[in-house]
């Protein structure tokens, strides 16, 4: 900075406002992907596999093609070969032979798309699907990871059942086989995860020594559920081709980053793809870019030479719409008398689904090292393939699981050691630049940018009335038991290095071109408040351009992993500061003096020593156009992403064009934390329970938009509560087919499932490693709330009563009457 001005004065940042997308959502005029219509539009339906693993042995499309109104049928052999990718260093990474394709002749799960029909209307498309003559050879399948790990257990794929690390550095992970011995299963018994071989592991410190000197060692097994994302908008996309360019209106969490993702799936040039995604009906990690459901209409549209709409049915969405992988964890945890975690030995087996390796188990280990700061730790894990739907990151992937696996272990240790569960959370909580595993090659640990979760525990305990609730008398009603629980959650919460792009127009308005997707978190807009503040612009003079890559958007992060508010507020600030510098340079060139003689305010750039001498932003923008070069976008600085460069070139001459990459320093890994406090009342005669209160206290740095922040805390807490209380899959393992396909069978939470009293708070201490101070908040409430509710249920019903989440009516009643606990499938998530 050439002057001593503050980077930005938070006049807008930190305050509530109405986001620019809300009105359209409330009037029905917001266009989601399936609201698009095009002349001559065809609709597409899918033929999906009825079997969990099969090979198509016979396929005759003649009758289907003869159905009047059928325009094209797309099969797997028409898919372009998957594209190789190029690493940052320029090395070519060959396409994975195990990757998911949009269609397949060897389906690996029930519901996987085999072919797609485009027809003039839905009824015709459905009739054509039924007219397809198809036969299958059924292949061996497996639904539960442990069944696959057993000696002689089936492998989900013909070439193996687990993901293995690369054989040599620089190569891809590969699929191989892992089996555990009968003796290992025998030793574990029916209720414990066998301590078999893992495929990945890391450790630091002396774990066995830590366990040996512990006052209490717990050996716990727990299962977290498979939970589908179930965005309310099923996967939808309208595709059409114009002059060789693919246009795709698609529900996607991200906007600019969806383009290269599609390009890779289609093996085509990213410059020939336009993505339109102004509104997206929920994602939760399931629509981070775009996949199967966007590729199919794109290819069908090309084949049929007409626009094609795919709107997945809810049942197809259940199959192709992604899901969080179940994990089975076995945790040996050693505690000192004061509750300090001396050693943690953790084995996590993950139900990976049949395709790309998921990282929930890995993240669970990394986050365990941060969240509970064990003095010594070993993590071991295996991603086991099953013939169940493709998994994907879901809000706090691994973060939800680690809290659910370990939160209740801490609470149990507290009860065994006669400690306050809050105290055991606190004594193990990370602080400041806390260390994070896994260890680096030199053996040292990484560090968080900043952690203030102890403050969150303190503030939250006070707001919740933890101590008062601990000592409340039991409920008067004899069959009602009350319990309370506290737990922490965390997740990564920010990335760096993306671009900001602004235009100050000749009318003196600020136009912000952002490539951030809009999935409802409002970060696409919230982050831009910082750019406006950097220029002291009133919000009314700002306009956000988003959601259509044909409208020249800046390279942005994907909207996933709660990185956006951190990453894109930095990028917005970088662009704001670039605009400020250019305004001053233009003023100096126009009015004399040096740039640092000028200041900015009230939509003007003016001399510090003589406020009357200056330019309005409108005048400066016109002057920028006259000056050209870097000022109006005819020249683009180095270090900007190629996509942004293209956007700048298109905007050149429209005004003062400010563009910059976020190069602000950051030392450490960025994480946010939440401390959650829950109270439940369980009727032990009916097995039903209510969450009477929940408080979520955040440590996510500066709050940029309080209402959106609160919405994330509430909504993501509910997502965790769903995992604790009623969301899961049910599978018939003999046939490999899910029996729960509908909402009434998979039970996403309704408004009446909410805590009766929900409150929230935020520590609000800015993160020192980012100039805005803000970190993401979308993910950490999930694990914290899930674990707090599980802890509260244990508090009400006793330890060792639940082997898995969610805890439903039958599980509560079995806690009271253990005799009714089903004997079979103790370690299955899907029963």
């Amino acid at each position, binding site marked *: 900075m050439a002057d001593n001005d503050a980077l930005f004065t938070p006049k807008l940042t930190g305050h509530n406002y109405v986001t620019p997308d809300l*009105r359209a959502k409330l009037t029905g005029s917001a266009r989601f992907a399936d609201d698009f219509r095009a002349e001559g539009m065809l609709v597409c339906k899918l033929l999906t596999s009825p079997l969990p693993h099969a090979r198509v042995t016979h396929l005759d499309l003649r009758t289907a093609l003869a159905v009047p109104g059928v325009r094209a049928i797309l099969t797997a052999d028409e898919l372009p070969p998957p594209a190789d990718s190029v690493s940052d260093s320029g090395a070519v990474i060959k396409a994975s032979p195990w990757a998911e394709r949009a269609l397949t002749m060897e389906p690996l799960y029930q519901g996987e798309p085999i072919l797609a029909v485009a027809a003039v209307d839905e009824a015709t498309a459905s009739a054509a699907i039924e007219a397809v003559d198809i036969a299958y050879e059924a292949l061996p399948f497996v639904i539960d990871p442990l069944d696959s790990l057993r000696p002689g257990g089936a492998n989900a794929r013909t070439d193996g059942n687990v993901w293995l690390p690369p054989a040599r550095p620089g190569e891809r992970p590969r699929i191989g086989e892992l089996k555990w011995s009968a003796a290992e299963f025998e030793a574990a018994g029916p209720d414990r995860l066998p301590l078999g071989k893992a495929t990945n592991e890391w450790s630091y410190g002396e774990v066995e020594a830590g366990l040996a000197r512990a006052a209490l060692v717990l050996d716990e097994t727990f299962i977290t559920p498979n939970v589908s994302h179930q965005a309310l908008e099923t996967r939808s996309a309208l595709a059409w081709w114009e002059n060789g360019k693919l246009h795709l209106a698609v529900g996607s969490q991200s906007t600019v980053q969806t383009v290269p993702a599609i390009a890779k799936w289609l093996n085509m040039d990213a410059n020939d793809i336009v993505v339109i995604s102004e509104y997206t009906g929920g994602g939760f990690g399931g629509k981070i870019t775009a996949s199967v459901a966007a590729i199919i209409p794109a290819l069908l549209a090309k084949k049929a030479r007409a626009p094609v709409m795919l709107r997945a049915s809810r049942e197809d969405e259940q199959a192709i719409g992604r899901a969080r992988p179940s994990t089975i964890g076995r945790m040996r945890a050693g505690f000192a008398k004061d509750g300090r975690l001396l050693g943690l030995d953790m084995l996590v087996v993950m139900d990976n689904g049949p395709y790309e390796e998921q990282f929930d188990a890995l993240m669970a280990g990394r986050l365990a090292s941060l969240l509970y700061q064990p003095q010594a730790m070993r993590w071991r894990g295996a991603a086991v393939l099953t013939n169940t739907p493709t998994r994907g990151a879901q809000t706090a992937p691994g973060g939800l699981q680690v809290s659910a696996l370990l939160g209740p272990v801490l609470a149990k240790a507290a009860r065994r050691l006669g400690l306050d569960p809050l105290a055991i959370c606190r004594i193990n909580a990370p602080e400041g630049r806390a260390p994070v595993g896994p260890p680096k090659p030199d053996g040292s640990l990484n560090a968080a940018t900043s952690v203030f979760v102890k403050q969150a525990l303190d503030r939250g305990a006070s707001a919740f009335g933890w101590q008062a609730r601990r000592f409340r008398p039991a409920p008067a009603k004899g069959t009602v038991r009350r319990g309370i629980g506290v737990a922490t959650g965390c997740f990564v919460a920010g990335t760096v290095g993306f671009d900001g792009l602004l235009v100050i127009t000749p009318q003196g308005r600020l136009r912000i071109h952002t490539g951030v997707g809009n999935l409802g978190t409002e970060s696409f807009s919230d982050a831009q408040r910082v750019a406006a503040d950097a220029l002291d612009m009133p919000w009314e003079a700002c306009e956000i351009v988003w959601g259509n890559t044909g409208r020249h958007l800046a390279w942005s992060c994907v909207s996933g992993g709660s990185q956006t508010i951190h990453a894109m507020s930095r990028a917005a600030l970088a662009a704001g500061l670039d605009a400020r510098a250019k305004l001053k340079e233009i003023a100096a060139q126009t009015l004399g003096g040096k740039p640092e003689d000028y200041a900015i305010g009230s939509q003007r750039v003016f001399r510090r020593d003589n406020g009357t001498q200056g330019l309005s932003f409108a005048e400066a923008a016109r002057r920028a156009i006259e000056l050209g070069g870097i000022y109006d976008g005819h020249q683009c600085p180095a270090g900007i992403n190629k996509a942004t460069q293209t956007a700048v070139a298109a905007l050149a001459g429209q005004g003062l064009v400010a563009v910059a990459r976020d190069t602000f320093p950051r030392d450490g890994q960025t994480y946010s934390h939440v401390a959650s406090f829950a109270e439940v009342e369980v009727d032990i005669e009916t097995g039903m329970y209510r969450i009477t209160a929940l408080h979520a206290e955040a440590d996510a740095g500066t709050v940029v938009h309080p209402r959106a922040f609160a919405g994330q805390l509430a909504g993501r807490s509910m997502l965790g509560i769903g995992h604790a209380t009623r969301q899961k899959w049910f599978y018939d393992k003999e046939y490999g087919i899910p029996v729960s396909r509908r909402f009434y069978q998979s039970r996403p939470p309704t408004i009446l499932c909410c805590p009766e009293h929900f409150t929230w708070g935020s520590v609000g201490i800015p993160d020192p490693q980012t100039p805005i101070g803000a970190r993401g908040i979308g993910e950490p409430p999930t694990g914290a709330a899930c674990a707090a509710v599980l802890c509260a249920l244990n508090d009400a019903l006793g330890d060792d009563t639940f082997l898995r989440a969610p805890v439903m009516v039958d599980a509560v009643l079995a806690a009271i009457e253990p005799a009714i606990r089903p004997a079979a499938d103790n370690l299955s998530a899907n029963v």
Partner: protein
Amino acid sequence: MHASIVESIRPAGMTRRQFIKSVIAAGAVSSSGLLFSGPAGAGPKASPRVVERLLTLDVNGQRRRVDVLPQETLAQTLRHKLGLTGLKVGCDRGECGACTVLVDAVPQYACSLLTQSVRGKSILTIEGLARPDGKLHPLQQGVLDEQGFQCGYCAPGFLMATLGFLAVNPHPNRQELAHGVSGNLCRCQDYDKILTGLMRGAEYMRKE
């Protein structure tokens, strides 16, 4: 099913009985296709009492003439034929509420009603709330002022369910209103803020 077909596709490790059961369960083996002759209904009308396809719907105060198939849902008619895409089809099975519209002032799932069944009834959709000059309905304004909803896909359904509920109970407390809109799913699960917005909207409505 022919035994030979079964044998040729039976997977290793599965007994024949198991496999036949699985094939029956999944409908896995094709015999012959079943063909429909396009979307235009089931052939000649056998009775004078078969419904007329052409009908007039009263939608948002306007009379709209439309050709409706017997098996067409109100959601399909509104979204595909009348261009009213505000209501959403989140499940098409009456399980999410995103398609909620008012039929004679009563909230109903448009995905689970045959359009033919609402002949002569008046239908209100989200598009009918704001005034032609763009002024928002007080319920919309209340939600706007509280920054209600996240992705917004469920919003039209929630607003219509609320309007129908407020017609019966204009002075609800939070819990009553929560029950009133309990037939609407929000997967962003921002129920707390939605309810705050709807309560604000109800308050605005009482003042108007």
